[in-house]
């Protein structure tokens, strides 16, 4: 089974670059698809808009979702993912700068699988990404695709 993509939803180019660099540094071989706002992310996941007619490609292995996004924010993206039977079990990791309690609580309330704060220290950031990759891409057994709970 080919490795499924990682969907990185990030509007900040430097964060995007750094995240990709961190993933690369840790030999994450999965293709990383970057969506730069909430709409793009949703279009990718649900094959709508720009991605309409893309056909039935597999869902991402994992979604790394920033909270603060243009157009549709991260929480709304998450809400829609969880609202759709097809994507209800899709692992979504909040990857964001904020450590505001309300963000953390709201994320988990909307069904985030994990909440990771992006540290300022790049080395720490890389470490966080490494652990994320290790966990979600290696250790974690994802729910079978299309499974109904």
């Amino acid at each position, binding site marked *: 089974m080919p490795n499924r993509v990682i969907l990185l939803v990030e509007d900040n180019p430097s964060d995007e670059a750094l995240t990709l660099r961190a993933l690369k540094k840790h030999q994450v071989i999965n293709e990383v698809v970057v969506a730069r706002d909430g709409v793009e992310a949703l279009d990718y996941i649900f094959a709508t808009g720009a991605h309409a007619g893309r056909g039935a490609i597999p869902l991402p292995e994992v979604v790394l979702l920033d909270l603060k996004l243009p157009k549709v924010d991260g929480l709304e993206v998450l809400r829609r993912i969880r609202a759709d039977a097809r994507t209800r079990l899709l692992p979504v990791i909040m990857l964001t700068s904020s*450590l505001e309690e309300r963000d953390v609580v709201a994320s988990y309330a909307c069904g985030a699988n994990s909440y990771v704060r992006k540290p300022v220290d790049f080395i720490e950031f890389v470490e966080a990404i490494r652990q994320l990759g290790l966990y979600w891409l290696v250790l974690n057994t994802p729910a079978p695709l299309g499974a109904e709970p």
Partner: protein
Amino acid sequence: MDAASLPSPLHNIFRRPAALPKQSPPYFVPYCHNSIRPVLLKLPVTTRRSSLTRKQLLEENAELRARLAEAEERLRARHPEGVEAAPGDGGGGERVFDPNERERTHQALASAALAVQDVTDLRRTEEATLRGILDATQESIWLFSPEGRMLMGNTIAFQRFGKPPADIIGKHFNEILPPELARTRLARLREVVEFARPVDFEDERCGIFFHHRFYPVLDAAGQVTSVACFSRDVTERKRSDGERVQLLTRLQEQHAELDAVLAAIQDVVLIYDKDGTVRLVNRACVPAYGFDPTNHSLPDIVRRNSYHDIDGRPLDAESVPTARALRGESVRNAQCVVQRMDGAEAAWEISSTPLRIGGEVVGAVTVWHDITERQKVAERLRQSEALYRAIGESIDYGVWTCAPDGRNTYASESFLKLVGLTQEQCSNFGWGAVLHPDDAHHTIEAWKECVRQRGMWDIEHRVRGVDGQYHAVLARGVPVLNDRGEIVCWAGINLDISRLKRAEEELRHLNAKLEQRVNERTAELTLAAQYARSLIEASLDPLVTISADGRITDANRATELATGVARDELVGSDFSSYFTDADRARAGYQRVIAEGLVRDYALTLRHTSGHTMDVLYNATVYRNGAGEVQGIFAAARDITHRNRAEEQLKAANRDLEAFCYSVSHDLRAPLRGIDGFSQALLEDYLDRLDAEGQGHLRWIRSECQRMGCLIDDLLNLSRVGRVAIERKSVDLTALAQEIVAGLRRTAGNRSVRFQIANGLRAEGDSHLLRAALSNLLDNAWKYTAKRPDAEIEFGSLPLRALANPPEGLGCPPATPVFFVRDNGVGFDMAYAHKLFAPFQRLHSVKEFPGTGIGLAIAHRVVHRHGGHIWTQAAVDRGATFYFVLTPKGH
């Protein structure tokens, strides 16, 4: 007093009846009242002296017997056929009343008679003796033959018989006695002869009563040879026996009378014997004494019941009336108070009279008359009189009484003194003279008329006192009538009403003054009202008064401005109609009426133009002098501006929130970029950078990270200020233990001795308290880093135990003060004021890392709890952070 003068039949009992025969056996009353018997028995009885004589007689008799026996022996030896008796005179002697003795004497005499009969040869020598013996008795002594012939007699016998011996001796009874007498005596004689025993009987001859004893004279063979007769004149005794029966009957009657009299008497009657022992009491006695005193002695009675004279002096057994009577004194109506053993007390009038027999006191009669009631009545009367007198004297001019004819009979002392009259003068219409000349005629005429009409007396006049002043007197009186409607007297009072008159005058004066003052006060009040009105009008707050039913009763200018309605229209209109929420307005003034006041009651006033004004009402009921609610006073404060400011504050807070959120998300991202790309440079272009370039990049990274920390700390601080506090009981001990465990985990290689007191609890927000405590412990942990024997303590002590608590805490002495104490590097107290400000540090970052936000957070948390935090420290001597959480005023 002689017993004979007693008006009672008693004296007969005690007086020795003179008529009783002297020769009666020892004085003996066969029937008498039992209670009197002991008295009688103790009476002196002269007959008892006979005992001496009796003794002599016995001796004499014994001697006689001896001699007779001797003579008899000799006679038998010489003349067995008998002797002839010869009578002879003998001397007198004491009478013997003992019947036995008499018997013996008779026997002796019988023997003697026999002896006389036989002893013929001794006649000469013993005749005189025998004669003496025979004549020694006053009894007639005869000797009869068994057939009834007179053989011999003694002198007295012949004398009594009234015939010389020659006419008697040898004669048969039938010859010398009347036939009837002869027959009875012969019968007796035959009885004696037949049965050889003595016979006693009595009969009467020629008006003389005789007691006879026929005594058989026996020979040696026991045959009756003759009969001796001893006859005694008992005429006197017979007579006295009759008298005695009469006396006894009389005595019995008297006893019955006495019993009846004693029973009928309500007074207590006691009869004492001369020793002071109660011998007789009547029925009334026992209830009075509380026991039956019969046979009790006077000392015993006085011991049982205590006696006092009327003045309360105790009386002993020697001084009670009875004791005095027993000493011969006749006590009349001595008043005593007797308290019985059971405590009951009564007043008595006691009379006691000695009983005398022949001048000798033999007892006493005591009569008690109960005067308790009389005393009570007398006392009541005394009190009543005293009361009326006191009343009379206490009234100015007092009371008076007049005879039915109008003449004064009594005027109270106070009147007499005041007008300088004596009672006598007053009784002679002297009171007319002290009347005011203008009143005198009228008063006197009116009084005469009143007496004539038997009407009510009611007049006002002036009376001249000794001081020369005239006093206004109100005289009132009524006729006192008896059962038949006749006037017994007039009784009335005089009242000094001059004071009343003066008071009236003063009252008039006072009223005038009062009126003047009322006018003054009214003016003052008008002024005050104007002043108050001006104040009300000057108020920028809308002020209204509302009646209990919600109508506006008054309003100021500000109200007019706020509503756009003129005062005239406001007054009388419905208060609630000027608000956007009329129901809430109504509820507001109803609450004022129910609770007395409301504070800061929010309403919105509506102007006629449609503008609204947010107001807070403070309203209170107002009452009249009697405390009744008159209405509501309501003052509105325009808070439109305040509400606007609050809105602005809220908006600012929202902005701040957004700012913080933005900072949280966006400010860190560039830093992360700088840091990340610096690192990328270091990683990818290390070989093209010299050491200085690499150093700069590391500096860049280090600064980025520090800024990240600063941003985080700032956010934390701002969060502490923003979050709502949820108060609940927090286990600070457990919290501290968790925090310490965390510290040990992150820096496990340090050896720090933590001492955390048990059971520390506080009311507060657990998250904020955790933040505060965490920062304080962190702080302590950090500044003890250089101590090998680091010690950190978390505990609490009551405020009163603190040596130098900060001023103005406003907490009770028992308030717990929590503290975190360390033995770290401490600090100079000169900089203590900087300690809690954000980003203020007393040490360099190099020395101790940190942003300087931790204590600011602790400070903010404590303050948000209404508490206070302070510190005590010295350089190199450790630091102690104290905080109280109990809010001021709670």
